[in-house]
């Protein structure tokens, strides 16, 4: 039995590091199996880090943009309409940025952010033509206060009409932490997911392209992994 290597392997998992490879014997395997079993049963294990969930999503999206036909929407019923209306809701890279915007000029900041975000997206995906940042006219930007389910403000959401159109979410001073799905409700009553929003210690910014005009968006919600709506904003 390779005791020192087994001990090193055990010490690695106890300190949450990748164990080194070595040729193990069946007896080693029995010891390592029980070590893994004991370690994995530790109470307080809190699941994947939000950063990991977001980063993997981003990498998968980049793969999808390399041309893989991986996400056909179901071909019947309402989902077909959604696919026709909103092909951009297919998985695609999102980019987070955490600049600290002043309260004044949030809409302009949103447009600046989405323009730079789209450029970064294209660096990853490399298919779409880079958009031209357009000045944000008052009619082009719709926004709404982001409110918790009991009505407390926790940021703002913006929708910008252009080519492409964008949604931008600014979360501040919330009790949220983790990864949430952004759902967009359209004027025709349909509801579609726009992507994943990561909130760190109550704060986060997120932008994403959509193939609808801002005027077609009625409401946006953040939904936690359990399916509970934790915040919503009505666009005006």
């Amino acid at each position: 039995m390779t005791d020192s290597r087994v001990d090193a392997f055990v010490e690695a998992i106890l300190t949450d590091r990748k164990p080194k490879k070595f040729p193990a014997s069946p007896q080693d395997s029995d010891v390592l199996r029980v070590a893994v079993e004991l370690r994995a049963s530790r109470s307080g294990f809190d699941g994947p880090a939000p950063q990991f969930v977001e980063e993997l999503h981003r990498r998968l999206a980049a793969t999808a943009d390399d041309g893989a036909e991986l996400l056909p929407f179901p071909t019947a019923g309402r989902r077909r309409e959604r696919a026709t209306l909103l092909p951009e809701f297919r998985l695609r890279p999102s980019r987070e940025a955490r600049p600290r915007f002043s309260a004044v000029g949030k809409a302009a900041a949103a447009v600046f952010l989405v323009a730079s975000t789209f450029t970064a997206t294209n660096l990853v995906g490399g298919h779409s033509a880079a958009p031209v940042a357009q000045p944000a006219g008052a009619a082009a930007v719709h926004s709404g206060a982001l409110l918790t389910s009991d009505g407390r403000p926790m940021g703002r959401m913006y929708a910008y009409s252009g080519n492409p159109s964008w949604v931008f979410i600014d979360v501040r001073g919330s009790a949220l932490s983790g990864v949430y799905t952004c759902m967009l409700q359209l004027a025709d009553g349909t509801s579609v997911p726009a992507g994943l929003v990561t909130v760190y210690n109550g704060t986060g910014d997120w932008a994403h392209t959509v193939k609808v005009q801002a005027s077609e968006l009625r409401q946006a919600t953040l939904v936690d992994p359990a399916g509970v709506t934790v915040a919503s904003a009505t666009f005006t």
Partner: protein
Amino acid sequence: MSSSSWMRGCDEGPMSQEARGEQDRVAVVPLTPLDDTAYPDWDSAYLDNVGRLYRLMYHKVGNRPDAEDLTSEVFRAALGPLRLTASKGEVRAYLLATAQTVLASHWRRRLGLEVTHIDPDIELSYLAAPVAASDAEPRVRQILAGLPDHYRRVLELRFLEGCSIKESASAMAVSVSNAKVLQHRALRMAARVAEELGQ
């Protein structure tokens, strides 16, 4: 070294007497029927399964970096063939079948043999179960119960309470080198107890 010294924790951490009492409760995980509804899009499928798959992989490898790598590998491998016209249950079954292969390859690369494996028939209910805070599993408690007090305590301190070897030695009122020997022997005895219990 007295038996009472083995019962001290290395800090005020998660394994208080009260927590140990919690662990003594028998956890019952009900079987979950396959979900025959479909995901509306890839994002939903990803978000619904990434945490579940990560937890499963963590239980099979015991460390976060490997669990993250293996979870990533499963999603990358499943990305191409996966079709969202399938039901949620079918999507999870496909992810699980992929995970089985990915985990087996991981162990062959790392140690030349499989230390843990995924049985899709057994793990599907685990993958479909709602995400919940983990607790020491009944089997682990059975393994620990089959050990002498000082062996059980050193494993509790190191594996369940996250104490360093120095902290564990201090909690058990033994030297660091003695604690290392205790852990070494305790693991080997635990492996024998686990083998007797079966999978």
